[in-house]
């Protein structure tokens, strides 16, 4: 059959069922996909295991941060309390917010998505299982480091948003601020890794036939949120870099005496911080959007309206960041823009809620534990959303800013919008993960305790806030008149905690001897419930053709067909873990992707990278460097042995008359997309630095005139050098495609030489002008830009030498050029970075001078 004639709507029938063949295929699949036993279990990379670890670890951090919350409430229960010292109290509330946001709210999205997404997609796994495992280990190590600091009295104590100068001046803040900065930067690595994995997963790993209009809502949300992570987290990474450069080396970014401005940190933090709220909210709403149709026994009303809302919220939520800064003295016109956007975002958020309500209205919803939590979630979230509209109004915010009103508002939105839906998801997918059912009665107890306790704890805070109680206050006087309300809040918080304990016991209760649930226990329509009971590690027995949003409802006989191995890839003849990669729009099958199996490399890579970040906290630069080098070495070995292998045969029969290639390079391949997505995030972080440059230019009248101009000739030379690094790589790609691997290797070795010389010229120009980063914010910003560029030139150097070695070893060839194609894409981004840097160093000052 030729490729043009192949039609997914007209597949040849499956081969007749043969029990012996089925058995043999199942056995081969099982050996290929099963988890390692014993202590080797920790080297596993399968999404169902990594997702479960992620989930349990996130909940462990949630418990930790929850205990901190109880400490806070105990301290505030009565006036004039000294249960915690003031210093410890500062650490406790800082760590509470930090851990809840960075170690629970965001990772739990990744956890649930890694666990559930491949199964909803009817895929065997996500395209980069080792990347997921690496992300998990980074998360665990970084989280333990940040949380552990409180046991040494060294936890961060500047509040979860670490405002400068409290955080930038070592006189006000100890090592805690460094732990926050470096520990969380390290964890951000894992978030971005997960974002890459999930975006490529949704776009390229859908089952054949699942066109964009058939894609379940959960996948839309995952795509949107992972995209948001790419644009939200990097500005914070840029901010972390600047703040740590100031703390460790005295660079002048936030110190007003040296042309710095503490407001820069607030901008960079909240450009991350506000989208972050939606990054944690949307995935939980996605859980409701998945659960609700099951219990309504009908498709969601307004599916496309929900898609629109998710995309709309994703964009609008980036226009809200200044509403955290209404009181810092920005021009009122600027505040109004952000106030307007904050009101506008309520529109798509409301559409989603109305779609949910409409679906519940037209269907008779089956009462169940997940729906109980979903209902509670909507009630609490709508309340928090309405106070959100209040604080989005500038005049009201001026009254309520930094008071307990804000504390009440944010907990209503986060607990209603994120936690309760998550608990609904826990009860909903518990049978999917464990094949057992939770105790429903205990489940109801947990709901009512948490729902009642939550409202008792946080509703009064609206009043304590309006009565003037500032957030983060250590204690208060009885004459302030907040005592009774605070006591009520404290009692409520303990009732809430009791409800969570009931939930935790219910979920963790050993049920090994209980009867397993029946398959598709809730009678759901989405693919994850196609899993056999007891579950198998292969994800799905054979990858079906999907023709509906709710395939288990609309495609009769689908389960039997999957089980009998009648669909694609029913076998693992070569003993390799394989996925089908499809196209983004219509999910036409493109090729078979082999994914690597268990390995210890990711654990070691995470350990070395973690050590490097952790010792940097204590300024042990030598150990940090050695550890960083070890990380690079392990990563290179991981890439060399685990990626872009030349397959033993160029194509493979996957069943139903379809033969697919086993290798892909360039824009169709998953690796290319991973590079593209990672570099988009990288570019966003760079834009954070660009923002800093123009921010300083706007606020400082003399930003550029504090030093003499950098010599233009040297800047031009630097520009040419780094551009040469890009040009030579593009030339190498051409040479390889023209079957001249020797010339390609030559170009790849010459490229970094050009880049390094270019960087040297840039640095020389800056030194000629006498730029000293500790002197003034202009100097510091220029050096930060150059530092950023040089790191990218160095990364390019590593990759160029690596790819040259791959060509030399015959792994990267004219027919199998994936490595070089990915490298070229990287250098495209490098070229954009150097063009922008040159514009800021040379062109913009010249242009201003000419004005």
């Amino acid at each position, binding site marked *: 059959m030729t*490729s043009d004639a192949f039609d997914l709507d007209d597949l040849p029938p499956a081969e007749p069922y043969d029990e012996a063949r089925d058995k043999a295929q199942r056995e081969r699949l099982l050996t290929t996909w099963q988890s390692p036993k014993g202590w080797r279990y920790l080297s596993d990379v399968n999404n169902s295991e990594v997702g479960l670890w992620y989930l349990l670890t996130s909940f462990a951090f949630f418990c930790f941060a929850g205990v901190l919350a109880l400490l806070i409430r105990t301290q505030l229960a009565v006036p004039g309390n000294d249960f915690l010292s003031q210093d410890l109290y500062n650490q406790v509330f800082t760590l509470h917010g930090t851990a809840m946001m960075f170690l629970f709210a965001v990772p739990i999205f990744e956890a649930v998505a890694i666990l559930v997404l491949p199964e909803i997609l009817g895929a065997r796994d996500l395209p980069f299982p080792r990347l997921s495992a690496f992300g998990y280990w980074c998360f665990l190590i970084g989280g333990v480091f940040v949380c552990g600091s409180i046991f040494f009295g060294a936890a961060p104590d500047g509040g979860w948003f670490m405002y400068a100068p409290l955080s930038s001046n070592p006189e006000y803040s100890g090592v805690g601020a460094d732990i926050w900065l470096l520990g969380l930067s390290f964890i951000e690595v894992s978030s971005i890794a997960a974002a890459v994995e999930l975006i490529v997963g949704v776009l390229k790993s859908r089952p054949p036939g699942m066109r964009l209009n058939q894609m379940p809502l959960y996948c839309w949300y995952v795509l949107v949120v992972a995209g948001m992570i790419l644009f939200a987290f990097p500005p914070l990474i840029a901010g972390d870099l600047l703040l740590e450069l100031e703390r460790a080396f005295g660079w002048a970014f936030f110190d007003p005496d040296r042309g710095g401005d503490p407001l820069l940190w607030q901008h960079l933090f909240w450009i991350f911080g506000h989208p972050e709220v939606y990054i944690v909210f949307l995935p939980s709403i996605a859980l409701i959007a998945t659960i609700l149709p099951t219990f309504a026994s009908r498709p969601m009303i307004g599916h*496309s309206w929900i898609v629109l809302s998710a995309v*709309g919220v994703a964009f609008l939520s980036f*226009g809200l960041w200044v509403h955290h800064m209404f009181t810092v003295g920005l021009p009122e016109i600027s505040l109004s823009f952000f106030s307007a956007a904050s009101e506008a975002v309520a529109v798509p958020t409301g559409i989603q809620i109305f779609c949910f309500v409409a679906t519940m209205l037209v269907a008779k919803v089956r009462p169940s534990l997940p729906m109980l939590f979903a209902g509670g979630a909507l009630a609490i979230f709508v309340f928090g959303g309405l106070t959100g509209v209040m604080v989005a109004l500038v005049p009201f915010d001026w009254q309520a800013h930094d008071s307990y009103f804000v504390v009440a508002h944010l907990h209503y939105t986060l607990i209603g919008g994120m936690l309760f839906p998550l608990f609904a998801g826990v009860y909903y997918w518990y049978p999917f993960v464990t094949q057992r059912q939770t105790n429903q009665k205990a489940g109801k107890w947990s709901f009512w305790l948490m729902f009642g306790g939550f409202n008792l704890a946080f509703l009064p805070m609206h009043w304590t806030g309006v009565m003037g109680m500032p957030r983060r206050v250590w204690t208060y006087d009885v004459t302030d008149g907040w005592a009774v309300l605070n006591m009520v809040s404290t009692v409520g918080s303990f009732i809430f905690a009791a409800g969570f304990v009931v939930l935790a016991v219910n979920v963790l209760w050993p049920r090994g001897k209980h009867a397993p649930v029946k398959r598709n226990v809730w009678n759901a329509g989405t693919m994850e419930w196609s899993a056999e009971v007891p579950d198998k590690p292969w994800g799905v027995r054979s990858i079906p053709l999907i023709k509906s949003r709710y395939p288990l409802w609309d495609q009769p006989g689908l389960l039997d067909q999957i089980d009998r191995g009648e669909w694609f890839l029913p076998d693992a003849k070569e003993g390799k873990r394989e996925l089908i990669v499809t196209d983004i729009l219509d999910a036409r099958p493109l090729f078979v992707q082999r994914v690597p199996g268990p390995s210890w490399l990711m654990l070691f890579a995470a350990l070395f990278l973690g050590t490097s970040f952790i010792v940097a906290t204590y300024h042990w630069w030598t150990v940090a460097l050695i550890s960083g080098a070890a990380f690079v070495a392990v990563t290179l070995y991981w890439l060399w042995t685990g990626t872009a292998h030349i397959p033993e045969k160029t194509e493979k029969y996957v069943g139903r008359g379809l033969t697919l290639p086993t290798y892909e390079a360039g824009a169709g391949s998953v690796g290319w997309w991973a590079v593209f997505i990672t570099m988009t995030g990288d570019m966003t972080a760079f834009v954070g630095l660009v923002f800093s440059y123009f921010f300083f230019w*706007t606020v400082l009248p003399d930003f550029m005139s504090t030093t003499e101009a950098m010599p233009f000739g040297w800047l031009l030379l630097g520009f040419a050098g780094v551009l040469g690094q890009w040009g030579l790589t593009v030339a190498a790609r051409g040479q390889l495609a023209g079957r001249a691997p020797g010339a390609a290797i030559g170009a790849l070795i010459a490229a970094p030489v050009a880049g390094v010389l270019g960087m040297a010229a840039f640095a020389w120009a800056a030194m000629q002008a006498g730029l000293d980063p500790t002197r003034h914010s202009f100097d510091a910003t220029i050096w930060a830009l150059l530092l950023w560029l040089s790191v990218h030139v160095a990364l390019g150097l590593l990759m160029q030498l690596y790819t040259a070695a791959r060509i030399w070893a015959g792994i990267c060839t004219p027919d199998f050029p994936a490595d070089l194609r990915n490298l070229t894409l990287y250098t495209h981004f490098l070229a954009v970075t150097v063009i922008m840097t040159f514009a800021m160093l040379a062109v913009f000052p010249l242009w201003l001078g000419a004005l």
Partner: protein
Amino acid sequence: MKHPTRPRAPRLIDDGSLWIVIAAPSIWAAHFLISYWVAAIWCAKIGGSLLDVRWIIAALGLASIALIGLLALVAVRRYGGTLIIFEEITEDSRPARERFMGHVSLLLCILSAVAVGFTVIPGLVMQTC
């Protein structure tokens, strides 16, 4: 290298339907940022009454809404986007997928136009920085 069976897939860029989905909100984002920059630079570097820059804000808003309108037209004409509410585009075909994307793009055009309007209002009302 022999070419195995591979169903023909539309190329992302040629097809364009993913881009049109994010185009309208991107225009909102661009309009928002430019408004913010104009105001910030005006207030920091030039100052004075906002009445002088009111026409810039209005013109920016109109231009953005016109662009979004153009996109909406594309969504309707090229992708067959419609404003349905209770009906769903669930057929399993390439035209249905295109119509679905057109429909979502159209909805996003409306949302983006409303959001641009939200941003323009303070520019017309406020008189000082």
